[in-house]
C-alpha cells in the first residue's frame, strides 16, 4: 500500500516536473522570435549573430532538459 502510494506520488511528481519543459519551450521561442525580428530589421547583421542565437537556445533549453531529467529520475530511479 505504502509502496503504491510512493510510486503514484513519484509519477505525479514526474508529471509536475514536465511543466518545466513548457518554460524552456517559451524561452526558446522567445530567443528565436527576437532573433528573427532583429534579423528582419537588420538582415546584414543577422549572419554574425546566428551562433549567439544557438548559444542562447542551448542555455534556455538546458533548463527544460533538467526538468525532463528530474521527471525521468522520479519515474525510473526513485
Amino acid at each position, binding site marked *: 500500500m505504502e509502496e503504491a502510494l510512493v510510486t503514484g506520488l513519484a509519477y505525479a511528481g514526474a508529471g509536475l516536473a514536465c511543466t518545466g519543459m513548457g518554460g524552456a519551450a517559451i524561452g526558446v521561442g522567445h530567443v528565436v522570435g527576437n532573433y528573427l525580428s532583429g534579423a528582419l530589421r537588420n538582415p546584414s547583421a543577422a549572419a*554574425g549573430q546566428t*551562433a549567439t542565437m*544557438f*548559444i542562447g*537556445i*542551448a*542555455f534556455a*533549453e*538546458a533548463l527544460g*532538459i*533538467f526538468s*525532463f*531529467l528530474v521527471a*525521468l529520475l522520479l519515474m*525510473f530511479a526513485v
Partner: protein
Amino acid sequence: MASEAPSEAHGAEDGGLVFHPMDQFIVKPLFGDSEIGVFTITNVTLWMGLAILAVIGIMVLGTRKRAIVPGRGQSIAELAYGFIYKMVEDVAGKDGVKYFPYIMTLFMFIVCANFLGLLPMAFTTTSHIAVTAILAMAVFLTVTILGFALHGFGFLKLFWISAAPLPLRPILALIEVISYFVRPVSHSIRLAGNMMAGHAVIKVFAAFAAVTVISPFSIVAITAIYALETLVSFIQAYVFAILTCVYLKDALHPHH
C-alpha cells in the same frame, strides 16, 4: 546484470507497453552474458567503433582524391572542416585556432554518434551520462588548466566583473563561480538528455503502435519525431562544439 531477461519480464508484466522505452540504452556485452568489466567488448564498443569508421569514412576516405574541384564526399568533409574552423575562429578568436583539432574531434565524434544512434536497433552512445560527462569534464578541465597556465591567477578576473559597481561585485563573483562550476553539468546533461529524451519518445510512440486504434497516429508521430531528432542530433553536436569554443574563449581572454 541488466540483460534482456528481466526487461522482457518487465515488458510482459507491464501489459501496456510491449517493450520498455529505456531498454534501448542498456549496456550489454556483445559476446556471451558475462559481467561488464572495464575492458569487456559491449555494444558501446561496437557503436563507438562504428563512429570511428564513420569519421574515417567522411574525413579520410572522402578526401582520398585531394581534388581541386571536390566531389560529393570531399565536399562534405570540406564543409565540416570549414564550418568548425570558422566557428572556432569567430567565437574563440584567432589564437583559439590552435585548439581546432580538439574541437573538431569532439564535434565529429558527437555528430557521428548521434546520427548512428538514429538508426533502428542502434545504441546511442552519446545518450549516456557517463560518456557526455567525460566529454564535458575534459572540456572543463582543459579550459580551467589552460586558463591558469596562460594567465596564472589573472584567470580569476573572469569572476570579478570590473564593469559592475563595486558593492555588487562579490555577489556577482559568487554567481559567476557557481555558474562556472555548473557548466560541465549542464554541458553534459544537455547532450545526454536531448539524445535520451528523443529516443525514449520514439520508443514510447513505437510501443503505442501495437494498439490498432492509434497506430496510424503513432506512426505519423514517429516520423515527425524522427525528423526532429535528425535536426536535434546535429544541433546538439553544434551546440556542444560552440559552447566548448565559448569556454575556450574565457580561458584565452578572461577579461570581460
